[in-house]
């Protein structure tokens, strides 16, 4: 199995911004800090991390939109740092912004994008019709993107990204704002292209559940660095010995109960909610403590669960917030 995308020691630093009146200056930020990745052919490879982890900056360097300060990017044997203009002939890209397409109808957005990918008018129209039908967009093909809901607009942009096939797809948070039906359409379309044409997908997400269900492998990003890279189940094994305990208190935690006070040190608090990662016997003891006696009166709800990618992320030293579970 060949490697489609090779990234080595990629570094990009945003220069420090001088403060203006009313706007404080910012120091220089290393948005990607020595990132190395290998993406294999036919894989759905994920970049997971909270906002500001450097996912989009990394993707912009892979798609030739941004020059790295140093490092190498090779896609299907082409050096994209030296020849960034080749990226558009290898990669289908779905960015986060739709402003270039907003005032077009769904059909024209897809057709125009196809033509700008080098398709002839006839082929562009045929592919447009196929993709719109595949994604269930035929009924709203005549409506401008601007007038659609966020999820439908996103799906229309995804359709545009598929017209004019490419061996590599780079999708930056493709399912933002979509309902479950639209999400399923997206993953079915991705799967079909992978099965029929061996298309490789690089997916940016901050949605943990999505990452667990659709990704073959995932790189976890934190402050511009890859802190882990494995299959979702492989990553979860790192914290397999742990159980996730979530406690929700009615008003506040009853810290006068000694067992609860002892748990506080290992809990991550957010308002009334405590999240703990404990060894199984510790978890059992903790649940017994809070469900019996004085603490129970203050308890609103509790759950026990096997760890998710979010727990992996936290265990690896990621900052607490910014990942979505939905």
């Amino acid at each position, binding site marked *: *199995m*060949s*490697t489609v995308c090779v990234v080595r020691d990629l570094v990009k630093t945003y220069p420090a911004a001088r403060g203006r009146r009313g706007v404080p200056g910012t120091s220089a930020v290393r948005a990607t800090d020595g990132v190395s990745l*290998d993406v*294999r*052919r*036919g*894989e*759905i490879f994920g970049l997971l991390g909270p906002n500001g982890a450097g996912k989009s900056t990394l993707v*912009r360097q892979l*798609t*030739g*939109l*941004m*020059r790295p300060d140093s490092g190498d990017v090779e896609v*299907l*044997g*082409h050096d994209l740092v030296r020849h*960034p*203009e*080749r*990226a*558009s*002939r*290898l*990669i289908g*890209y779905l*960015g986060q*912004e*739709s*402003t*270039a*397409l907003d*005032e*077009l*109808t769904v059909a*024209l*957005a897809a*057709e*125009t*994008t196809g*033509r*700008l*990918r*080098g398709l*002839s*008018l006839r082929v562009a129209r045929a592919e447009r019709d196929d993709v719109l039908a595949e994604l269930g967009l035929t009924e709203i093909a005549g409506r401008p993107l*601007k007038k659609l809901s966020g999820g439908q607009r996103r799906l229309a942009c995804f359709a545009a990204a598929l017209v*004019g096939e*490419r*061996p590599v797809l780079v999708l930056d948070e493709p399912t933002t704002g979509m309902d479950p039906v639209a999400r399923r359409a997206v993953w079915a379309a991705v799967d079909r292209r*992978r*099965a*029929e*044409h*061996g*298309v490789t997908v690089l997916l940016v997400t901050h949605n943990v559940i999505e990452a667990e269900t659709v990704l*073959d*492998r995932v790189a976890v990003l934190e402050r511009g660095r890859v802190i882990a890279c494995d*299959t979702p189940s492989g990553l979860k094994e790192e914290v397999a010995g742990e159980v996730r305990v979530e406690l929700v208190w009615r008003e506040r935690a009853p810290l006068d109960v000694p067992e609860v006070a002892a748990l506080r040190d290992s809990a991550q608090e957010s308002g009334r909610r405590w999240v703990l990662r404990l060894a199984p016997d510790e978890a059992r003891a903790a649940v017994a403590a809070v469900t019996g006696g004085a603490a129970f009166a203050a308890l609103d709800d509790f759950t026990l669960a096997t760890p998710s990618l979010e727990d992996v992320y936290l265990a690896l030293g990621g900052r607490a917030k910014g990942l979505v579970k939905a």
Partner: protein
Amino acid sequence: MSIVPAEAVSGRVSTAAETVNEPADGAPAPLAPRARLLPSLAAVYRAQLSRARVARIPLLFVATFQSVGIMILMRGVVDGGDEARAVVAGSSVLVVAFVALNLLAQYFGQLRASGGLDHYATLPVPPAAVVLGAAGAYASFTVPGTAVTAVAGSVLFQLPLTHLWVLVAVIPLSGAALAGLGAALGLLAPRQELATLLGQLGMSAALLLGVLPADRLPGPIGYARDLLPSTYGVEALARTFDARPDWPVVAFDLAVCAAVGVCSLAVATWAYRRAAVR
């Protein structure tokens, strides 16, 4: 040798796919073809033109009413002759300046600020196709408004309609010059607000320097008038209101517009390249 993810080699991966996308050992994969200039220009032009239905028609009405209103106002000040010609020609070209310079500068400024240029930058499309397609579409939006203004003005000031066919050359050439300028301003301005401001200023200059008769302007402002590309469109149109226009001079004015158009569109294309890869 790397371990293959199980999903990637599930039975559904066809052998056909292996031969299509799999490069020979070590050799780079074939690149998809580039989009050629003319077809992609046509595609951008058509897409931009379709935006008119959604976003531009109200603004076109504003542009036309503004010009007609100015002519009605100026009727109290100007009574026939050279000055009337200048007013009608200036108001007509003002429609071009409003749409091609002002609105296009705003459009590109907004596209650049919002990251919309990424869409084009990740497609294998020649930069010139994007700039020329958008500029051409915006210049086309001005056709009805300019024609209506020119005819209405000629009737209002009792000027001959005989040579108004020259609009066929005036609109595309001054359109090219002003749209190129607008696109370059929009793409070069470091911030979106500045792009809007520059577009507005450019249009105000076209209004003041184009509509007010030249011999009433003080010296230095007269020079500024000579620097503004719309002036040459205005002069070409104004000259054709004569019974026997001086065609070589008209042709020279239009040639200046064409030259400015070529230069400003080249600058805009360069600015697009620069803005697309940050």
